[in-house]
Structures are given as C-alpha cells and as structure tokens.
C-alpha cells in the first residue's frame, strides 16, 4: 500500500507564512527607519523621487487651480474693486514708515560708520513664492512653496510674510522648496524683546501647540503683549523682523525657568504668498570656540539646523 503523501500539494502552497513575512518586512522597515533617521543616507533618493513626483502632484492640483481660476474670472467686479482700494489704502498707510525707514537706515549707517561698527546685516535680495500645499505629515509643521533651486533658493534661507517670520527653508528640490514653520518642534528662532531688548530663543512646540521662550529666567523683563523681533544673531534672519507676541507668562517658584507662551504674528499656515530672504554673505565666520573640540568628543546632541 502506498503511503499517503504528507507534503503540501502545489495548489495549496502559499510560500512562507504571513507571520514569517511580517517578521521579514518588519525588520526591513525598521532597518530603513534607522538608516533614514540616524544617518540620512536616503536624502538623495528623496531628491530624485520628489523630482519625479513633481509633475504628478502639479497635475493633481490642476483641477483645483482651474476651478480657482474660473471662479476668480467670474468673480464680481465690485469685490475686485473693493480689494484694490483696500490694498491701495494699506500701501498709503505704510508709505510714511517706508520713507522714514530709508532715512533712518541712512542715518544709522552714518552713525555706525562714526562708531566704526560693522554694517548691520540686511538681506539684500528676496524672492516672492507661493505656497503650494502643506505637508501631509501630521507630526511636522511644513509647507511646500513653488520655487526651488531653479530660482536660486538655498536651504537655510529665512521665510517671511507681510506680518512677520514664517519659518526657514529646510530642503530644496529642483522646482519646490520645503519650509519648516517656526511652530515646528525642530525650529528655533533667536529673538529679542522689542520693549526691553531681552534676548532669548523662541522654540516651536509642534502641531497645535504655541511656541515658547525656553530657559528664560523668572526675573527677566517680559510682559504679556511684548513683541518679539529677530535678534539676527543666527545669521539666518535679518534683525528686526517681527516674530511673535507674548500671550502668557507663568512664573512658578517651583520651576527653574519661567514659562513664556507666544503667539506667532505671521499668518503661519494661512498666508498664500511668502518671501524667501536670501542669506547674505556679510556674516563673518563663527570664531573657534575654546571648548569646541572637547564638546565634539563628548558627542553632545545639539538641536542643529536640519
């Protein structure tokens, strides 16, 4: 008598079990995650993929763009006229300040020359960009804008709108650039309080949370309603740009530092048009820090610019 075959007939053969496959692909994903977050090996792959996907994404946006164009075309004449007169009024209202600015700048330059100080650092040129869309990633506060390395935008450039600082260019692709907003967890802006000239650093706190001034002494001269301007110490943002307003100051005697909650002044994720400031080369090189070599040896993880 022939023994009953115990092997699985080919018809039922399904290869490795789902659990084995899950283990294999799970380990593979973890390896990818590790390689990407730790060493950023995959940045080049990302560049290529984004370049390939760009036409697809622009194509997908076409219906929306066409709709906006058509509704805009048939938009009422009165609406346009209203908007036009409003913009003209705004322009006139800002006129004196602008004229005064040129004079003040001139005077400032002369005084600085008298005092033999380094000329103040201003972004020489800027590029206007339009926001394409915000990042899908719910963990990051990022925008994509419609110009990239083709328009000369470089990573690290500051981005502002009409009311204040929006963020910083963090990645540049051929036809678009990624802007990390100042509310992002990895973003920090050196600021100075307009009223009392106290310097501090504004740290983003992630999605849905207000940015804060961290490591500020409870005795620092800060009040609710104070405006924070960029201090220009980082060389990324020119000094004097509006950044945020203090909305809450909590001085708890049990804590080392005061908790200072701020509200960004720029329409962080509402503005449609932004200005990318070109970082100028006027910034002198950073002097060698005395303890830099030792710190590097210890491998302290800084909150570096990405």
């Amino acid at each position, binding site marked *: 008598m022939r023994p009953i075959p115990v092997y699985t007939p080919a018809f039922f053969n399904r290869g490795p079990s789902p659990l084995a496959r899950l283990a294999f*692909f799970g380990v593979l994903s973890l390896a990818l995650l590790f390689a990407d977050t730790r060493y950023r090996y995959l940045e080049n792959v990302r560049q290529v*993929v984004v370049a390939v996907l760009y036409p697809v994404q622009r194509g997908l946006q076409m219906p929306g763009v066409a709709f906006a164009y058509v509704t805009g075309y048939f938009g009422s004449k009165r609406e346009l006229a209203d908007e036009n007169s409003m913009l003209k009024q705004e322009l006139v209202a800002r006129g004196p300040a602008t004229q005064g600015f040129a004079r003040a700048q001139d005077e400032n330059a002369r005084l600085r020359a008298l005092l033999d100080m380094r000329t103040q650092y201003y972004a020489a040129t800027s590029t206007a960009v339009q926001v394409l869309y915000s990042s899908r990633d719910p963990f990051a506060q990022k925008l994509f804008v419609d110009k990239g390395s083709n328009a000369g935008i470089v990573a690290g450039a500051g981005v502002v709108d009409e009311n204040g600082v929006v963020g910083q260019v963090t990645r540049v692709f051929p036809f678009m650039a990624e802007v990390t907003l100042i509310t992002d967890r990895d973003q920090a802006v050196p600021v100075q309080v307009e009223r009392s000239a106290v310097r501090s650093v504004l740290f983003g706190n992630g999605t849905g949370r207000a940015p804060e001034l961290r490591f500020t002494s409870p005795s620092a001269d800060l009040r609710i309603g104070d405006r924070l301007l960029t201090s220009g110490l980082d060389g990324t943002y020119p000094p004097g740009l509006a950044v945020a307003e203090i909305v809450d100051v909590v001085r708890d005697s049990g804590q080392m530092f005061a908790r200072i909650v701020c509200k960004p002044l720029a329409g962080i994720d509402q503005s449609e048009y932004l200005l990318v400031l070109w970082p100028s080369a006027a910034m002198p090189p950073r002097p060698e820090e005395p303890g830099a070599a030792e710190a590097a040896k210890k491998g302290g993880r800084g909150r570096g610019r990405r």
Partner: protein
Amino acid sequence: MRVLPSVGSFGPASHDEILRPAKPWFILLSLLLALVANLVPVSGTALALRPDFLALVLLYWCIQQPRFVGVGTAWVFGLLMDVGDATVFGQHALAYAVLAYGAEYFRRRVLRFPLWQQAVQVAVLLVLCALLVLLVRFVGGSTLPHWTYLEPPLIGALLWPLVSVLLQTPQRPSRSRSRN
C-alpha cells in the same frame, strides 16, 4: 434557492452570489488610484480629515484576495507612500505590513459580518495602523499630536462599506445572467 432580503443593485454581494475572480490589473489599478488619492495635495480641514485610502484598499484586497495581496504588497505600497510623503522612510511600510498581517488574521471572521459591523473591526485595524506610525515617530523624537490624529482612521472605517461595494462591483456577475 433561498430568497434573501433584497439588497438592491448597489449593495454587498450576498453569500449565495458567486463572484468572478478579481483581475490582477484591477487590483493594481485600484491600489495605484488609492495611492494617488493619498498624494493629492490639499490643505487645512481637508488634510486633517482625509482618510488613508491606500490603507483601506489594501485592507480590502488583503481580506478578499489574500493570494494576490499580502504583507509583501502592502509593504511595497507603504514604501511608495513614504516616498511620496517625503517624511521618514519605512514608517508607512511597517504600518501597512502589520495591517496586512492583521487582515490575514481577521479575514475569515470579518467576512461573516454585515458591512457596518465589518467597519467596526476595520476601524480597530486602521487605528492600530495609525498608532504604529505614531509610535515610530514618537520614538524618533516627535511630540504627541492632537487627538484629531485619530479622525482620519475613523473616517476611513466609515468609508469601508462604500469601498467594499465599489471594489466588489467588477467581480459580480451581470444581472441578466444571475436571474436564470
């Protein structure tokens, strides 16, 4: 033949109905369309509420056609999703692989339930998938997002009946033939 309560022409196939095999090109097309739907750039509320279409369609095919679509396919599409997202490589790949495994584990049971009860079980899987992405990002150093982070998977589960019926339509025999 047992007379079933009428389901209407636009409803799930009854247990008596014999479905035609799904065509591989249709499976691939539906997955690609779902990927594109995920990558359409939107902003604001639409972005916060958009369900993960790819996860839904993958889940459907993992349950219906486990011989065509399994952990491996889910992983590859997860990788495409990561690439399109330009975030961290591997997060969606991992989440979708686990999702496909969950579907494999659930599939024999899920199909016995009516669609809305299936949707509840799908919700559990989708939330699990979202929490896995959250865990990956949390370990990577992100802060916890707002609770609205769980809205897209729940909306995805609400869409489950619609997605199942839509994806089943090409496999159903035409009405004229099913009458005799």
